[in-house]
Structure formats: structure tokens, C-alpha cells
């Protein structure tokens, strides 16, 4: 599949990718490399993984990263309780200990966490490692073997190689810098806020019931809002929420009722400081531009 075919297929699945992003996906899949996506929150990085899993008709395995995430929660863990029970059950039998060791460190006692699970699928799944910047730097080291060799080494068991190489999507919101070692192993794409035309296309695709003139006004407003001096700029997810709210309240035009318009801005503005900056008057001006 060529990059433009990927773009078209994603479009059919309601995901509108820029040409640049489609090329990165194409290259990452063909080179069997993870795709590292950076960019502001709410611009469709996570949604891409879901769309890709639909495109390739495969499962999506998601690992949500957080501070303190370690190998036992992300790669594998031995089922200790089951191992203890097994030892107890075998206590009175005359089998030698070596056999018990072999038994309790077998696949039956291995709890697969998302990363190992992704390697043991028959059909290449889409593995989403979401918000990797939230995990500790040490966790990136765990990932290196998996991402470069597509294998996991378990001291008691051996090395498990991928049955089929997963399509790996790693997302980061830039809250900390990732290590060079991880970056080097990935195909990189920085997802910007969409341009006006692309955002309008997304809005019309996702919410086809909204009048085209109102859609244009909504996109214009959000684009203007993004250039204001605010702490959290609204992403596409916020635009869609806001558009749904505007439509749900029955507004046919943004200039219909500025008071209602201002009250709906809670969908776009996520901090108290931003709400203070965008007063009703400023919102009115932004709607008129």
C-alpha cells in the first residue's frame, strides 16, 4: 500500500491524516520501525492507532504510560500465587525439584502484559504506547530491546521472539525530553495543529450534520483562538466537542448569541487563566474575524 492509499483508506475510516503523516506511517510500516508521534494533546495521535488497527483489521493493544510504570506492569510478570499453589500441590509427590522448577517457570505461569502480548499475536497487532513522556526514563530502557529486536528476554524462561512484528505507535505530549536511544529507533513525526482546510474537512467528516457555514465559522474561531496568548491551546478533540455543543444548543450562526457562545467556551478553554483572558468581548471579536 502506497502512502496516498493509506491516506485515502484512513479517510474512509474517518481519520484525516496530513500527507506528511501518511508518509511517516508508510515508511514506518515498510521499515518495520516504531512511529514516534509528538505534538500537543488532542490532535489525534492516539486516534491514529485506533484507525490503523481498523485499517489493517487487527487488534489494538494499548499501554498507557504513567510515572512508576515498570516491567512487571508493562512486559510480563510471573503468577506468584499460582506458582505457590503449584509447589504446595507437588509437595507430597515424589517428582524431583527440577521438574517443579521447569513447571512453575513455564508459559502457563507467565502473565502477559501489553508489550509481551503484542509480540505473541499471530497477526501483527497495532501496539500503542501512549504518552511515553509520562513514564520514567528507566522505562525507556526496557523498551529498547523490544523496539529494536522485537523480542523479550526473560531470565527464567528464555527469549520470546515476536510471532509477527507489531505496528508500533508511540505518542508523546512533550512534557519531558525522550532519550536519544529511543528516538534513534523510531520514525519521527511531529503532529501540528491542523491547518484551516484540514480542520474543516475533519469537522465535516466527523460531524456531517452541522451546517457548512457554521462549520467554517467554528474552525475560523478555533484557528483564531490558537494564536491568542493562552496556556492550553485547543486541539481537534476540543474543536469537535465545541462544535457538538454549539450544534446541540441550536445555534445556527456564532453571532446569534454571544452570551451563549461565551458560555460554551468551557469546551475549548481548560484553565482558569485562559478563561480570564478570553472575555466575552474578545470571543465576540474572534467570532467576527
Amino acid at each position, binding site marked *: 500500500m*502506497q*502512502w496516498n492509499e493509506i491516506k485515502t483508506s484512513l479517510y474512509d475510516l474517518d481519520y484525516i491524516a496530513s500527507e506528511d503523516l501518511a508518509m511517516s506511517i508508510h515508511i514506518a510500516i515498510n*521499515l518495520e520501525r516504531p512511529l514516534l508521534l509528538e505534538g500537543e494533546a488532542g490532535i489525534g495521535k492516539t486516534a491514529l492507532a485506533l484507525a490503523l488497527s481498523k485499517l489493517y483489521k487487527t487488534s489494538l493493544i494499548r499501554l498507557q504510560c504513567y510515572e512508576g510504570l515498570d516491567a512487571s506492569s508493562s512486559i510480563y510478570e510471573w503468577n*506468584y500465587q499460582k506458582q505457590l499453589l503449584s509447589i504446595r500441590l507437588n509437595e507430597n509427590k515424589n517428582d524431583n525439584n527440577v521438574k517443579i522448577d521447569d513447571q512453575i517457570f513455564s508459559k502457563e505461569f507467565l502473565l502477559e502484559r501489553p508489550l509481551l502480548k503484542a509480540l505473541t499475536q499471530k497477526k501483527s497487532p497495532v501496539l500503542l504506547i501512549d504518552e511515553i513522556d509520562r513514564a520514567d526514563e528507566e522505562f525507556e530502557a526496557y523498551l529498547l530491546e523490544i523496539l529494536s529486536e522485537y523480542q523479550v528476554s526473560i531470565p527464567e524462561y528464555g527469549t520470546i521472539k515476536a510471532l509477527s512484528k507489531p505496528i508500533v505507535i508511540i505518542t508523546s505530549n512533550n512534557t*519531558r525530553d525522550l532519550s536519544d536511544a529511543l528516538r*534513534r529507533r523510531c520514525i*519521527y513525526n511531529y503532529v501540528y495543529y491542523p491547518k484551516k482546510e484540514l480542520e474543516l474537512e475533519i469537522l465535516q467528516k466527523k460531524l456531517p450534520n452541522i451546517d457548512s457555514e457554521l462549520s467554517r465559522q467554528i474552525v475560523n474561531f478555533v484557528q483564531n483562538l490558537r494564536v491568542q496568548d493562552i496556556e492550553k491551546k485547543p486541539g481537534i478533540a476540543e474543536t469537535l466537542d465545541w462544535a457538538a455543543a454549539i450544534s446541540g444548543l441550536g445555534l445556527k450562526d456564532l453571532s446569534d448569541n454571544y452570551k451563549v457562545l461565551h458560555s460554551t467556551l468551557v469546551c475549548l478553554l481548560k484553565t482558569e487563566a485562559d478563561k480570564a483572558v478570553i472575555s466575552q468581548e474578545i470571543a465576540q471579536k474572534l467570532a467576527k474575524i
Partner: protein
Amino acid sequence: MLKPTKFLARSSIKSRLLDFTHHMYANGFNTTFDQVFQSLKGLKHIDLSDLNDWKSALRSIYCYNFQTYENFDELFDSFERQKNDLNKNKNTKSILSPIEGQTLTNETANDILNKDNEAEISNETKSKITASYLENNRKTDLKELIETDLQQRIHAAVLRIAKSIKHKRSRRLLAKKKGEKLDLRKIVSKSLAYEGYPLKLYKKSKPKKPMKIVTILDISGSMKIYSQIFLTFVKGLVGINQSTEVYLFHTRLMRVTDYLKENDTLKAVNRISMLTEGFSGGTKIGKSLKEFNNVYSRNFVNGKTVVMIISDGYDTGSSKIVAEELEKLKKRNCKIVWLNPLLGWENYAPVASSMKAASKYLDLFAPCNTLEHLENLEKELIEI
């Protein structure tokens, strides 16, 4: 500023990619041979006759962070332009120009590298290299021969400073022999060896997390006389702790961390002198801090960061912005240290409006006009 590259009149895709990789490396990209290899593999999957496809594919492979992603297009275009200029008279194809019907073979890395690259350097190219070298020497005003003993003293001071702000306690628990809490998971797993009886108790405690230093250095006219010492100082910090971030400002901000990772101090200072050439007069502390907050602070500043601003506080911009931006920065839970060379002067009071506005957000406000001051920073930094 784009660095001129030694272009070779090559014809094959592999040679062009190697030229391109050199060009990117010369302009601050951390390129590796793996990228050339991946590019060769990746180019098999695109339409080679479309320059935009080339650009998009190489962008995905050569970029690795936001900064490189932002600069890529400019560097790609400059490479294309310069190569076109070079080839105009030779009636040959441009560097990454459409190549219809050309296919790639699976030649190995060594095959590519073993080709004799130097044979094809034209006289025209040679003259370009000489010109750029001469130009290079003219621009090295900041490096004015840093004396060896001065370098050593600065290095010693830097070592002590780095040590004083090395660690911070973390909230996470990690295994430790004499830890504060029992590590139940480990106790259960290790008890398997004793038939499930927890004979050995394992403990864990909160580890010390390394602190990061972010230095924002004023290189405006009023700070020029101190530039030599401070650049050596920050170079030393980067040398000791590779996670140290360095930014220079004037009327705008520039990240120079990667350039300071050069082993040779003189070379590093020289490269920075070239980079900062385009800066115009005046100092805009507020604007520069705003740029830092908007672009970089999210990546590099958190509760485990000490932000060290080195400036005399003389600002041609608004002091209100300085206060606003410092407040935003402070919200990231970092420590802010302001080193002011003027503070070491007798009867100095921070009357500059920006300095006044900044003072309430600072964890430490210290002088730094002599080496002794830098050396004494250690004690004060331990306390913050």
C-alpha cells in the same frame, strides 16, 4: 545560520544520500549511518520521481525531535538549491531531483562507504570550502583565547556547583537494602525459594533523583565582557551533566545545548559565536523567557530542574512580561536562580525594572562577576 557543505558532484542515489547526511550533520543534526541505510530501504517504497515524496520520507527518517522537524525543510531546500547551483554549469541532475525509472539495489553499507568520495570534488567546490573557512575565522570574536588555568578554575567551580545540585528525593520507591518500607512484591516472589515462607525481608525506599540544570545566558552588549567566562562555565556544566540545557538570548532565544557537547571548548565557543551572529542589538529578557516557556519549558523544566538565568537585568523590553513569564516558569515547580554580574559591584541595588519585577520569583539571587563568586555558589545552591 546554515553551514556551507562540501558538495560532491555525484550521480547515484547512495552518494547523494551520503552528501545529504553530511549536510545535515554539518548543520547540527545527529545523523548516523543507520539513517542512510534506513533511507535507502525507505526510498524503495516511494515514488522517486516526486521530490515531495523524497522530502517527506527523509524527514520521517532524519528528524528526531521538534527542533529538527522544524529545521528540516529549510535544510533540505538549501541542500537542493546549492546542489542545483553547483550542477548548473555541469549540465547534470540536481541532488535529489526527480529520477525517473531509477531503482535501488540491496547494496550493503560497506559497499557504499568504500566508494572513493573525494575523487569527484570540483575546483569550484574547493574554492567554496576555502571561502567559507576564511569567513569562519573572521567571526570568532567570542573565543579570544581562553587561558588554560582560567579554564581549570572554572572547571573546578563547575564541578562543585554541579555536585551541590545533583540530587533531589523522589516519590517513587525502589529496592534498597536499608530501605524504609517492606517490598511485598519482592518478598512474595523470593519466598518461592523457601516454599512460600517469607524468610528474607526485602525493603525499598525513595531514591534520590538527579536534578537537571537549565541555563539561560544573556549575551547582549552589556554582558559581552563576561561572555568568555560564562560560556566556558556553561560548557563545563554540559560536560559534567549531559542533561544540562543551555540557551542564549539577546533579542531572541536560541538553544545551543547540542553545540556545547563538542569536546573542545574553543571549538564549541567558536560555533556558538557563528550561530549568534544574526542577533540584533538590545536585550529582551521578557520576550526570550516567553519563547522559552512556550517552546522549551514543557520538555525541560519540572520539579527536578534548576533554571539558572545569567543576566545583568538590563532590558529594552517590558518588565511586566519578565514577571509574567517568571511566574509561569515558577508554576513548573522548578528552582530559579538569577546570577547577576552587577550584584558584585559596590553599592549595587537591583533598580533595573526587570530585575525588580523578577526578584520575588527567585530562589537565589547571587553575584557572578568574578570567579570567586562562581566558586562560592556551591554553598548557596545546596540551601535552595
